[in-house]
């Protein structure tokens, strides 16, 4: 088995498998880090954060990259539906499920915070710079920003920012584009990925001028793709055998360690910055 500490991309599959993928130009090598007996449909990985796996059956597993195994499990059942986001805040875990129950899991059950963020949540994200601040949004559910130290009221409620609305095909995924704050990378249900400039409101017109070049995507077709944002080229495409739900990019220094990457050294330095920005 490959060393877990050198994996560049971590992927959670619908079968409950955790995969590591080394970003290698010459060879394609993906490694499974789960045992085949344990996973199943109820262990489907619904959300990931560094490096916790939120499964369909309500368990949040912690993976240790040093020993290449799951070190602990935590029962985080509550609410209805699958996990839509998981994050860490110090020693506690933040989870959000589809029915809108956002909960902070402390060691002491008395200190646990629970709040309702509205129905049909599609995504919960954490602010990487101040981990107590999270954002939620979903179908027919406006974007809200919450401060978990003061959870009674939302810090900010947007009007008319609803995920999943577009004239043709629904957007299924969204990520902030590096450095350029007015742009987002969106993917729709048809498997098309585009960069949208929010200032100008046009699709695919602002691919020039990006200083941070990589975006990784995974989907139901079981492929992991890494694109260069500058010239829209596909850099890396791997078949990973299982349907993939979520991915994490490693922010370890080992991007520079592999000798193959020396020619594209600047790419990976920038990539590091990108992973830091996205809080992965």
């Amino acid at each position, binding site marked *: 088995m490959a060393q877990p500490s050198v994996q560049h991309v971590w992927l959670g599959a*619908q*079968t409950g*498998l955790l995969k590591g993928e080394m970003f290698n130009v010459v060879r394609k090598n993906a490694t499974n880090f789960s045992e085949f007996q344990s996973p199943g449909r109820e262990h489907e990985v619904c959300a990931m954060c560094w490096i916790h796996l939120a499964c369909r059956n309500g368990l949040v597993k912690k993976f240790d990259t040093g020993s290449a195994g799951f070190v602990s499990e935590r029962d985080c059942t509550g609410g209805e539906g699958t996990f839509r986001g998981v994050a860490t805040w110090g020693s506690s875990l933040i989870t959000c499920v589809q029915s809108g129950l956002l909960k902070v899991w402390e060691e002491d059950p008395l200190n646990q915070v629970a709040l309702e963020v509205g129905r049909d949540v599609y995504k919960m994200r954490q602010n990487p710079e101040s981990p107590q601040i999270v954002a939620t949004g979903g179908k027919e559910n406006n974007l809200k920003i919450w401060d978990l130290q003061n959870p009674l009221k939302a810090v900010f409620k947007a009007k008319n920012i609803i995920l999943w609305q577009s004239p043709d095909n*629904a957007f299924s995924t969204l990520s902030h584009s590096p450095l350029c704050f007015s742009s987002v990378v969106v993917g729709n*249900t048809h498997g098309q990925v585009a960069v949208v400039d929010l200032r100008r409101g046009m699709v695919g017109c602002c691919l020039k001028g990006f200083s941070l070049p990589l975006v990784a995507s995974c989907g139901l077709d079981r492929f992991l793709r890494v694109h260069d944002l500058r010239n829209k080229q596909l850099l890396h495409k791997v*078949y990973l055998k299982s*349907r993939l739900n979520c991915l994490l990019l490693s922010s370890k220094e080992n991007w520079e360690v592999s000798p193959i990457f020396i020619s594209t050294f600047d790419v990976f330095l920038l990539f590091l910055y990108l992973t830091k920005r996205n809080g992965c």
Partner: protein
Amino acid sequence: QKERKVLGDKAPPKPIPKTLENQREPDETIVQPQDEEVLLEENSDELSAYFSGQEVPKILVTTSDRPRSQTTRLCAELASVIPSCEIYYRRGLALKCISKQGAARNFTHLIVVNQNRQKPSIFVFILADLGLGRRGMRRPRRPTPHTPEVIMTGFGTRLGRSVGRLLASLFPSRPNFTGRQVATFHNQRDFIFLRFHRYMFKDGTKVGLQELGPRLTLKLRSLQRGTFDSCFGLYDWVHKRHEMDTSRRRFHL
């Protein structure tokens, strides 16, 4: 050939003719037999209940609005070969409405036969969207109500395997061997041919075949995850002509 005749046994072996199939572009998604990960995924997906025999498929067949005679005839033929199949008039209902009502009445599959230029053209299967061509038979025989066996051939890739599974799940997983009927889904160059036969073993080597149901030619256009949803549904695979059909030697199923 004349040289070959002259040389007799000493003739060099005939070269294998080049076809699109054996010149096929290598595809990394081709499933190896007994692949643990694929088996794991198949044992936990939505269709696993049919193949383990826990659920029996019950199929709702409907058409587009105002079906022409060819379309209704095709539905009747389908109902004659697929067991536990019921035909309903569309009555102008939306697909989402039908799938909701069907689920309430314990239907497991929904087949919609649409028509293009007054001929049946597109199957909207509850999960897959399949193009349809059709050829008549010379002397159709009547099928018996026995559950047929299902043969799948040529579904090699991971996508092909899931499409094959979907098609095979139309039939109950326990065939009735006394009926000696068989439904064959044969995939060749991404076209799926559907044939129904009754077989008879004549002696140890020969088998007689009698053709029963309609001959259908299907082509996969898209495969969705979950029930059919044109706006918010997640696509497993969509046929994108300009991206995917750049080589004649590339096949997806």
